[in-house]
């Protein structure tokens, strides 16, 4: 198969790569850039474990061909905070015990981050709706919903400080 040259901005860095026509963004992120927070779950757009931000919008990276993302900006859970640090939403997930096996967590954090950017003070219903595409099989969602609320408060108070 003839490869296609594309340019992606991944977690703030410009990257130029060659991709196969049927290569998903998910595989590019994991296999080429070792961004393994992006999880390969169902592979068919049902579980949300592969959620990333594409130009700020949460999308399923298993359902996107890398070639169609040419020129766009991708942020994974690794890119939410500088290397070695965590961001407030990640901290909230840890504090609220919203992580058990952890497989869904990066996708949850990405969807939650996008929600709070649009809606800094989300209700339980807002959170449930925003996370509808992210499945968790361990925690039962209660702690996750609490974590998103806590994360939203942290982000708000951080904004007030700066």
């Amino acid at each position, binding site marked *: *198969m*003839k490869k*296609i040259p594309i340019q992606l901005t991944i977690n703030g860095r410009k990257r130029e790569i060659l991709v*196969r*026509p*049927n290569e*998903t963004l998910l595989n590019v992120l994991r296999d080429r850039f070792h961004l393994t927070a992006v999880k390969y779950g169902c*592979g*068919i*757009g*049902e579980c*949300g474990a592969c*959620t990333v931000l594409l130009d700020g*919008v*949460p*999308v*399923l990276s*298993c*359902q*996107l*061909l890398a*070639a*169609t993302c*040419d020129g766009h900006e991708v942020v994974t859970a690794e890119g939410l905070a500088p290397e070695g640090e965590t961001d407030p939403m990640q901290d909230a997930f840890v504090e609220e015990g919203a992580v058990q096996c952890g497989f869904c967590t990066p996708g949850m954090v990405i*969807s939650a981050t996008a929600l709070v950017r649009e809606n800094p003070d989300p209700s339980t219903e807002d959170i*449930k*709706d*925003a*996370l*509808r*595409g*992210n*499945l968790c099989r361990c925690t039962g969602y209660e702690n996750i919903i609490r974590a998103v609320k806590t994360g939203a408060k942290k982000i708000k108070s951080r904004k007030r400080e700066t």
Partner: protein
Amino acid sequence: MSDFRFLQPEGLRAVLKAKEDEGAKGLILAGGTNLLSYIKKRRVKSGLLIDITRLDELKNIEEGAEGITLGASLTIQDLIESEVVRRRLPSFFEALKLFGNPLIRAKATLGGNLADASPIADTAPILLAMDASVQVASERGERTVELASFFKGVGETVLKPDEVLTAVTVPACGDSRVKMLKLGLRKGTACSVTSAAVRIKLRDREIEDVRIALGGVAPTPVRAYTVEKALLGKPCTGEEIENQAQLLRKDISPITDVRGSAEYRKEVSVNLLSRALLTAAGMEV
């Protein structure tokens, strides 16, 4: 071995040229939420992937005398955010919120949802109830197809191998009332067990006009012509609606699958239809 090529055409004309050359091997890639699953499951192993996501000419929203025309590569999220859709097609707007989940809605397109021809396409029942039509283009020219005659079978439509679905026209519903209900096994990201959409027009408490469409109960989304006919001219009462809705069994041919048995689907779709009709008619359910 899979064997794909990739094309990002500059305009619709180049898309149609590619479809003319490739026919069924020309795979229209819009949101990709279905196509990528088919590639992953190896139902589709080769072809020219024609990426139409960047074509602004397929993302127009036009208010015309005949109704609202919606470009085929508008995403479900684009439609939900559209002021025109919210104002002119409020029932369609409400129905769109039943679609998939935010991650899917960000990418899945209106044209893709219809052209994929799934029996449980979430936009199909409501668009059927609203008498929508689709615009189809090829190098040979353009044509309009009533949505009611668009679907042929599971994954099959009247589209010829060189044709592309370019837009959907939804007539403004005037003083008709429209309602869609969807039954899934859970609230989030659920494929429909069955769904029902109705458009009803009343005059002096009589049913002057009615359209009914169901999803998930036949190889394609279907109109319930028997029930429509039976309700015409009838007084709009709860008893009448519940009685005539029983005739739905003649219009549908559900199958048994992981989401429910054929028998269950027959029962539950009659109830769902009654509820949709009663709600649209402004009655207590």
